């Protein structure tokens, strides 16, 4: 994956509050929302571009993210979440799901779609690992472990669907100008 260069010097909008349960919940929730939003949006545009197979991958995968979100919801209960400025990045080397999505293509194959999904799932997994690494609070730890377990299953699904031999079909129709 081609990550955007944010590591060279300290990023101006780095989050530093991983010890706080409410912040962790909000940050994870934010990330999952982002993934769900893009999954839905790309599912729709792939549909519009008649790539139903790839669209289906995005559609199928949304529920996985939703179940991650469900775990968060269980933990929230009465905690009121902070508003995290949308420009803050959770940690150094955080890779935004957008990185993967740039490689979507209207003729993408099913396995390409799964590869993309996999990359997005990995974004989640990296964040969970990072938080686990930094955090010893039992409450947060057990949530993160549960999330990671779910995430591992997602990764497995993604890997299972990636095969090597479905290359991109040729684009037989040149694009048509619109305006």
């Amino acid at each position, binding site marked *: 994956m*081609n*990550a*955007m*260069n*944010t590591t*060279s*010097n300290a*990023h*101006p*909008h780095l989050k530093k509050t991983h010890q706080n349960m409410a912040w962790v919940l*909000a940050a994870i*929730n934010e990330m999952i*929302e*982002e993934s*769900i*939003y*893009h999954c*839905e*949006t*790309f*599912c*729709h*545009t*792939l549909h*519009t*571009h008649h*790539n139903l197979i*790839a669209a289906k991958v995005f*559609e199928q995968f*949304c529920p996985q993210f*939703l179940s991650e*979100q*469900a775990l*968060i*919801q269980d933990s*929230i209960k009465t905690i*009121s*979440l902070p*508003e995290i*400025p*949308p*420009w*803050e*990045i959770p940690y150094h080397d955080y890779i*935004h799901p*957008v*990185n993967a*999505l*740039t*490689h*979507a*293509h*209207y003729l*993408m194959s099913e396995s390409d779609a799964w590869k993309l999904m996999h990359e997005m799932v990995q974004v989640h997994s990296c964040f969970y690992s990072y938080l686990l690494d930094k955090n010893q609070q039992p409450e947060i730890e057990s949530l993160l472990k549960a999330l990671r377990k779910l995430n591992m299953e997602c990764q497995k699904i993604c890997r299972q669907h990636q095969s090597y031999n479905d290359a991109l079909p040729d684009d037989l129709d*040149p*694009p*048509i*100008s*619109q*305006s």
Partner: protein
Amino acid sequence: MTHASQTPLEKITVKTVKPTEYLSNVHPVWCPGCGHFFILRALTKALAWLKLPKEQIGLVSGIGCSSRLPAYLNVYGFHGVHGRALALASGLKANRPDLTVLVAGGDGDGYSIGGNHFIHACRRNMDITYIVMDNEVYGMTKGQPSPTTPAEWQSKLTPQGTGVARFNPMGIALAAGASFIARGFSGDPNGLTKLMTEAIQHKGFSLIEIKSPCVTFRPEEKAWQKSMRSLNVSPSSNPAEAAKSIYSSDGFDTGIFYQADLPVYEPTNTPCENPADVLAEIEKELNV
């Protein structure tokens, strides 16, 4: 499933305004992977963060893939003709200074056919935010070179490349009198959201020149992901310094290059309490 769908778990956040609230029920039909998707997302996040009421926003655009933006938002929008969005927005802002006026478009729309309006919108410095989704190509008409296309890029229309130097939008904006000049990148949604909130809050004409890959006609632009730097520029209010940073940048730096407190053009807008009397007074001048 809809683009603006409310997930069943939405209630868990306490944020009073969600980015998706700013979306209409029209789905974007940009090519999968197009940078414009992430600009749309960043914009809704910025609007939500600023908690701007939807009905207080006027979003104007021209023609192009990028200019499709207004239809995707649940605000007062105007999808006009090619290149004239800034002029239309100036009329809107003149009559309705109470609205937050945003303009969106592409590099062709803003810098080529709309070049004159771009210069004069900068010069007027009205309180308008201009979001340019620069993919260095005419996407919608399937891949002709734009004013920001590198000279050597070959296309059907320019088999040998354009042979013409590129246009420097930020340099021109600075020379023409814009008071906020920033570069963003669609692949850096967080940084972009920051720039958008700053630009909208800035009083005066704000240009955000956003590099946004056209994955269909300029697939090589996907590599921008590797070379762009996130918010590494620090703003200056001194035009000479800003010019230096604009001209010395290799094009991969992002952030606010220039932000200054310059006079904002605000045509008079004092409501008339007694139009009939004033009109009678005006007509009196005609009496012989």
